[in-house]
């Protein structure tokens, strides 16, 4: 028996990236732009989609990622928007994020020819989803004012991974000791280039800005993988 050192020098998430590239190729081929929407649980991803998707110019579809259940997918289906539910775990427990392979497994259920934009609503989590590309064109996140101003400093990986940060639930501001300027300052420290939208998905206040952002992504040219 002999011990041998084998040089590898390979990203340990390379397998995921390869599948993400394959997804991206399929999306590009169908002319579909893809948004990966992330946030902590309860930040308002589904509510924001409910507030914006009905008024969108682009033909949109939704992929709902949840550990369990189809409550969110049912809400989206009420909008007459094509939706596919992806559950990451059978029974109790399951993956806390979507990875490229899970998204790939849902592609046969999605009629890509009927949509221009696919919104992938990731599992609510501020850590793991930032690590796994799924084949998206753009990454956006929601951070609600109920979560505290320090979140960009605690989860820089997520806040840096996103080109858009939506600050949701601003209708709650009168009831909270929340300093939105402090949040913006922390966000600028971590991701100075991020676009920021302040809105309330519940009241509809300024949610049109998110709809406009989705439309801009839908109109993007396919970039080379």
């Amino acid at each position, binding site marked *: *028996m*002999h*011990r*041998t*050192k*084998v*040089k*590898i*020098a*390979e*990203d*340990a*998430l*390379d*397998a*995921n990236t390869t599948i993400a590239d394959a997804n991206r190729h399929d999306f590009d081929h169908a002319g579909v732009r893809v948004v990966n929407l992330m946030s902590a649980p309860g930040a308002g991803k589904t509510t924001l989609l409910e507030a914006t998707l009905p008024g969108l110019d682009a033909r949109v579809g939704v992929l709902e990622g949840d550990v369990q259940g189809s409550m969110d997918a049912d809400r989206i289906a009420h909008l007459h928007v094509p939706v596919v539910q992806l559950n990451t775990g059978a029974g109790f427990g399951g*993956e*806390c*994020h979507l*990875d490229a392979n899970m998204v790939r497994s849902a592609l046969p259920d999605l009629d890509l020819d009927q949509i221009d934009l696919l919104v992938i609503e990731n599992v609510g989590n501020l*850590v*793991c989803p930032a*690590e*796994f590309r799924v084949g998206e064109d753009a990454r956006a996140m929601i951070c609600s004012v109920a979560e505290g101003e320090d979140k*960009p*400093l605690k989860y*820089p*990986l997520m806040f*840096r991974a996103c080109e858009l940060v939506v600050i949701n639930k601003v209708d709650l501001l009168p009831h909270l000791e929340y300093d939105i300027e402090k949040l913006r300052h922390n966000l*600028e*420290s*971590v*991701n*100075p*280039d991020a676009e920021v939208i302040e809105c309330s998905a519940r009241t509809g206040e300024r949610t049109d800005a998110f709809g406009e952002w989705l439309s801009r992504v839908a109109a993007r040219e396919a970039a080379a993988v």
Partner: protein
Amino acid sequence: MHELSLATGIVETVVRHADGRPVTSVDMRIGTLRQVVPESLEFYFGICSRDTVCEGATLEQEIIQARLSCRACGEQWELDEPDFRCRSCAGSDVEVVAGTEFEVDSIEVTEEISTDQEEAGCIAPR
């Protein structure tokens, strides 16, 4: 909490390269920006590697300090606090030079070799 997913990625990568040979150690290069807790990664690696060629292997983690470089003024510095603006000119056109690594650098495998090879001191590459 993401260490479980990361450990799964490590085991998958190593198994692919080990070619069935038992693995005794795995050398990782991990940037500080990946926010990995070394003890947690080691714990989950032990669980994920069960019943694979990696079972019982040690996980060596070389931590790579995050380094930034300002494209505007050329300042280079190590990042200790999560503030990605240039510490010299406060600009935002900053490049992350190091610190995002999550790489299997090398592995050590055990393999049987013939007496001839052992005497010649050479091992056939696989």
